[in-house]
């Protein structure tokens, strides 16, 4: 089972989180935010190596609803998601 209990495909291409496909587990490879914004994102649990899956996107370019491998769910603004780079996972996280 995946960390969040969500089953889904495994993405095969690197991409900004904002463009990651739905219901597909990825891991954070790099966060390109700076200063306080970077510290804040890390503090809530979005850091390099964290597995996450995009559950849905709000309408009209609104935030993304994601679940992390640590069990948390977050609404993440598109401008943040654009600055979080994700990589495909070789296999679904255990």
């Amino acid at each position, binding site marked *: *089972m995946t960390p*969040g*209990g*969500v089953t889904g495909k495994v993405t095969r291409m690197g991409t900004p989180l904002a463009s990651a496909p739905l219901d597909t587990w990825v891991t954070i490879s790099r966060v390109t*935010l700076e*200063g*306080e*914004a970077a*510290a*804040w*994102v*890390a*503090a*809530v*649990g*979005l850091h390099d190596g*964290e597995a996450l899956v995009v*559950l*849905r996107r*709000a*309408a*009209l*370019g*609104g*935030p993304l*609803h994601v679940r*992390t*491998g*640590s*069990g*948390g*769910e*977050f*609404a*993440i*603004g598109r*401008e*943040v998601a654009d*600055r979080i780079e994700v990589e495909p996972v070789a296999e679904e996280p*255990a």
Partner: protein
Amino acid sequence: MSAACHDESAPKGSPSSARALVVLVGRPNSGKSSLYNLLTGGNAHVGNYPGITVDILEGEVDLPSGARATIADLPGLYSVEATVDHATDEGVARTFLEGLRARGESVTLLQVIDPTRLALGLRLTRELLRAGLPLVVALTHADVLAAEGRALDVDKLSGAIGAPVVLLSTRNPSGRATVLGAIDDRIRAGADADRGGGTFDPSAVARACTTDEGGEPEKARRARTARLDRLLLQPVLGPLLFVGLMALVFAAVFLVADPASSVTDGAVAWSRGRIEALLGGGLAASFLSDGILAGAGTVLAFMPQIVVLTVALELLEASGYLARGAFLVDRVLRFLGLSGRSFLPLLMGHACAVPAISSTRIIRDPKERLTTILVIPLMTCSARLPTYGLVLAAFFSHRSALFRASVFVGLYFAGVLSGLVASAVLRRTATKGKGLPLVLEMPSYRVPQPRVVARKAYGAGKRFLRDVGTTIVIASAVLWLLLKVPMPGVTPGATPIESSVAASIGRAMEPVTRPAGFDWRINVGLIGSFGARELMVGTMGVIFGLENADEDPAPLTERLRDTKKADGSPVYGTRTGLALLAFFVLACQCMSTVAAIRRETASLRWPALVLGYTYTLGYVAAVLVYQVAGLLGSS
């Protein structure tokens, strides 16, 4: 609603140096409020801590060893290491902990973690251990963990992180003894128990200590959550359901609160009658009845609305739905310079701006928080409703109920719209600057705990009475005095009131307010409602010489319609009513709100800006409405 759990109405006290100090910390939505309630039984006072301007709730408990301990409840925080604005909930918690360390005070941290999100909680644990303060970890929601079919090895977790760990359910009273026993053991162990730490990998530890025993209940729960989210967060249906639910909440507030308000009004009317019967018709009776009780009665009549709305919002928040609402409206708010984080304070502003302004501490972005504070006074708080009701009854009674209801709803939307436009302007001018990106935790759906909800409602009621009630009572007394005392050098008018100090001031304002259709009576009402807008109706009642006008506005509406000029034409027409409504939608007639802005911004500049821009907008809107309505042929 983390700020709301810090009851500002409680008396100040000082923590006794002879008692152990236990500080409750944890991420938002970790179950901290529930554990605090379980440990202290909900009894609390506000602690007095150097350098902390926000009230920290604390309660006394007896430990199993017989020692006494003070439990202090800090606002929720994600990190003690990441840079934060000191004015936010998280900044307050961090300042508090840094102060304890700097003063070398003996303290034990009690960190609350939701075990269903263990890895997230352990990130904060790691930081707390690195801070070098004695720590006990309390894992709440044991019942949820079991329901999900998962088990947690507490001893293994304790060994891995280097701190004692207890697992409990805050819904089970036996959990209290478990936590207090662990605190007692940690205090008695002293510095010898420090095992260093703060170097573990939270995700690895969480995986190693949690086992899935079956997984079917967990799968079922997640399936239920997913089904709910698919419905409630559906791009088109979700926002519609959200708007419908909010409308239902506001409707329920007025439907439920109305009978309670009627009872309160009746009690106040009875009290005024008793006072007049006991003291006769003298000045003392008039002061107590028309001045003090009229003001206090106005306050009490709004108490049910505040409490009912607090309960409704707390139920929505504790269930996990409000975070979904923030998700839905984020895009719209972002376009106007705010974000989903501003949603809850703006929503609370429809009950009362004072607690809503305090609740902005949950907004981590300083610019966004300031903007939210500056526009909350434009939300349609319940104190505007008596004036709305009076004007609609006085000038639109000949129109259909549907028309009046539409105007009423339109006034709500006018408040929201003006607030959003103001935020868009402010974010491009006075509060211009780069903001923090949105990262908002979406808590799991849960069944709210009645005790916690009741505590929030009780706190809101007490705070409302203190923050607003005192202001209104004082303003009522001053207004009564100004309406009773004759202006020196003024020729007595037809009635004593017309030659009073207040009436003379009202007349002096007429050259400015006449373009909006306001005469001296309305001007005096506006002066009276400068401190608290709900005083408008009572003030007008006194001016028109009607006893108990605030309990029964019908005679006042007739008097407003029937008052004639010397030439026999009516003094007030429909367009006067419309202009008055426009003014009330926009003007910040609430000194408690101004004081709250002063407190939260630690500045005179921002409350002055709010007074300046809202009164200017209110005046301009009133003049425009009056003049345009006149051009369109309105009476």
